[in-house]
């Protein structure tokens, strides 16, 4: 059986289907109702019944009333779409901008659906959203909606549709109950929380011990500080030497300052006396011995003063003090440059030491690497879990905000299934008709195929061509042409039935549609199309072979001995002969002139004219046909001989005999 063709939904078909969509025939409460295990519904109904509101109880059982209040659904939305938590760890209003948007849109959409489900009020925004959704997602509805002239008309259509469709209402109610049932939030949230904790734990654990890299960095910093210090080595040694001298003097400086203080007055007095003595000495300018003696005396007094212990001690102390001060000055000059370097080195050394201790006390490098790897994996897992959570929340948001859209899709699809079923049924019927029609056309084509080896022939009646110019009516017929049938018979004999069919298949369309064959375009198409069917090919090749054999005989061809033997020696040949004989009988019955000729021949039977008549060309043709007819009577095996004999010039008497035996 041929497969049902694919039905392309054209705009016209879409409208047809939309028109065929059945209007809901269920009562408002036939679908939906109390979901299994939905105790909330039952409790609400029981409560209403107990308070005497019987009708309300029935509506609740029937599922006309959503069992969750607005507060319930708001809480459910927060649970599903928010990741924020309050101080007690309970889900709270979101703080993330995207979550805020989602929660708000979900709340709005849900209340629109509730308003419709419970009160039958269609929010225009909901209708518009449905129009947009259907235009985008449902090709059939798009065709219908697009055929409406304005947005207002489309909205009105949608409003009317959803008001009338109880399937939509029931489905919306059921989806509302399913998708807004209080329960858990996104499943991935648990993973996110667990992985966040894991990442935090690992981070804290790794922070307790110094990473190896920190120690290496500290060591490199120490090296740099030491290198800077080495660059100032000369100044550094000077400073160190000065500081050493200062350190050595540190112990004396106290006593030195004490000596200076103690001997300062005595030293000043002696210094004044020495100054006076030097003045006196300058005044003695004579060269007499007295002067010389005075000069010696004064010099002795000066020496005596200068060797005074207080004077000597003060000078010594003064020297130490001055040296000390100089050393301090030098240290003060060098220290500002060199001390920071020293301090830096000291600090780096201390840092390195501290880190070394930490490393020694903490994780081994292998353990640290392992922990770091665990942390990386945990961070990746956390990122993935957050992505999953986000996706899950988007999906939940979509589910909550698309209750009407999904209900509409279900309602439309349900209607479409029915409508489409009917449409397909019609299409199948049409396809059946088409098939029959195609077969019919193919049969016509098949009938005409044999014209390939026929020729147009005009019958001018008994007055022959002489009547032609007198305007007598003529009858044009197609008659088998000996040349053509012979050529095809050769094909048949060499290529078999399939070879014959292939030969005919190769005839171009133009020739098939030409005056000789007379096929129409539709017939050619049907014929070519049907050739793909192997059964058809087989049937057609059988039929054509038989027709050809018959037409060959009709056109004056003879089965010579070789041909008949070749044919009779194979199943194909036997089949051909049988088919040919059958056809010949039909043909004979259709040609009164042949019947008349036969009658004439029969009338001559037994006379001297018989063979003379039979030898006339017009009867030679009949003789061949009779051979075939005779074959029918005496069976294929004898037929070989009969045909063979009949095909020879000496076979006429025997042919006559066979002919008579057939007709008797």
């Amino acid at each position: 059986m041929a497969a049902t063709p694919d039905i392309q939904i054209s705009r016209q078909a879409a409208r047809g289907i939309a028109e065929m969509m059945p209007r809901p025939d269920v009562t408002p409460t036939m679908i939906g109702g109390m979901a299994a295990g939905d105790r909330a519904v039952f409790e609400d109904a029981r409560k209403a019944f107990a308070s005497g509101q019987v009708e309300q109880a029935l509506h609740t059982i029937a599922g006309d009333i959503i069992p969750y209040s607005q507060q319930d659904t708001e809480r459910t939305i927060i649970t599903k779409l928010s990741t924020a938590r309050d101080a007690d760890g309970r889900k709270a209003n979101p703080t993330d901008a995207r979550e805020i948007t989602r929660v708000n849109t979900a709340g709005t959409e849900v209340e629109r659906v509730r308003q419709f489900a419970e009160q039958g009020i269609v929010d225009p925004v909901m209708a518009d959203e449905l129009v947009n959704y259907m235009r985008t997602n449902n090709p059939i509805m798009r065709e219908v909606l697009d055929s409406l002239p304005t947005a207002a008309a489309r909205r009105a259509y949608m409003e009317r549709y959803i008001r009338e469709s109880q399937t939509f209402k029931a489905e919306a109610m059921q989806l509302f109950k399913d998708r807004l049932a209080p329960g858990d939030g996104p499943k991935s949230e648990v993973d996110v929380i667990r992985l966040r904790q894991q990442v935090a734990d690992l981070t804290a654990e790794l922070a307790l011990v110094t990473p190896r890299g920190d120690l290496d960095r500290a060591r490199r910093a120490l090296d740099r500080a030491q290198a800077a210090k080495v660059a100032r080595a000369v100044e550094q040694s000077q400073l160190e030497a000065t500081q050493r001298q200062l350190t050595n003097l540190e112990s004396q400086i106290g006593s030195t300052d004490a000596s200076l203080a103690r001997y300062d007055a005595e030293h000043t007095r002696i210094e004044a006396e020495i100054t006076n003595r030097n003045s006196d000495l300058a005044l003695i300018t004579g060269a007499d011995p007295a002067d010389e003696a005075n000069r010696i005396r004064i010099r002795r007094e000066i020496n005596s003063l200068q060797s005074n212990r207080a004077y000597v001690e003060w000078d010594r102390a003064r020297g130490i003090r001055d040296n000390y001060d100089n050393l301090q000055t030098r240290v003060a000059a060098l220290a500002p440059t060199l001390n920071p370097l020293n301090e830096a080195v000291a600090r780096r050394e201390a840092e390195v030491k501290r880190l070394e201790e930490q490393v020694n006390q903490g994780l081994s490098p292998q353990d640290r690497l392992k922990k770091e790897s665990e942390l990386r994996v945990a961070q990746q897992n956390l990122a993935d879990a957050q992505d999953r959570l986000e996706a899950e929340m988007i999906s939940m948001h979509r589910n909550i905000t698309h209750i009407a859209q999904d209900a509409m899709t279900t309602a439309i699809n349900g209607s479409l299934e029915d409508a489409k079923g009917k449409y397909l049924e019609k299409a199948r019927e049409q396809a059946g008709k088409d098939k029959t029609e195609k077969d019919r056309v193919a049969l016509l084509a098949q009938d005409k195929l044999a014209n390939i080896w026929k020729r147009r022939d005009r019958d001018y009646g008994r007055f022959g061509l002489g009547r032609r110019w007198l305007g007598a009516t003529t009858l044009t017929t197609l008659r088998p042409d000996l040349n053509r049938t012979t050529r095809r018979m050769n094909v048949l004999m060499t290529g078999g039935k399939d070879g014959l069919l292939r030969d005919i298949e190769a005839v171009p369309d133009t020739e098939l549609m030409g005056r000789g064959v007379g096929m129409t375009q539709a017939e050619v198409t049907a014929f070519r199309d049907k050739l793909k069917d192997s059964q058809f090919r087989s049937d057609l090749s059988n039929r054509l072979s038989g027709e050809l054999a018959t037409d060959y005989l009709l056109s004056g061809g003879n089965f010579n001995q070789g041909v008949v033997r070749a044919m009779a020696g194979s199943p194909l040949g036997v089949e051909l002969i049988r088919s040919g004989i059958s056809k010949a009988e039909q043909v004979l019955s259709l040609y009164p002139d042949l019947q008349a000729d036969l009658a004439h021949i029969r009338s001559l039977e037994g006379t001297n004219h018989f063979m003379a008549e039979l030898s006339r060309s017009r009867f030679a043709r009949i003789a061949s046909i009779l051979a075939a007819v005779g074959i029918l009577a005496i069976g294929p095996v004898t037929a070989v001989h009969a045909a063979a004999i009949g095909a020879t010039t000496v076979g006429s008497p025997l042919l006559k005999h066979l002919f008579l035996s057939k007709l008797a």
Partner: protein
Amino acid sequence: MQNQLVEAKRDLIIHKITGILLDALQNDDLEPEDGAIIAGYLLERKKQITDEKSLNQFMNEVAEKLDIFRGFINLQKEKDSQNSLDNQKLEDIKSQLVELARTQSN
């Protein structure tokens, strides 16, 4: 007056049936989906009860279609029948009394 009586009777029967329905749901004798269908059916049919005849028809339908209500409906019918019998008797007595009074006055 007659209408009010029918309405009162209708509400009473619906009330009883709803109670039976809820009990059946509670005891899991009835699937929630079936309960929803029955509830919807009752709501629809209730609107069509306008007189005694339609009420009786409703009760017959309910008893015929829904097993769980059959016992109650049959009982209710018996009660109604008894009431009707009693009413008939009362009517008979009343008419006899009227007849007697008329005879005496003559």
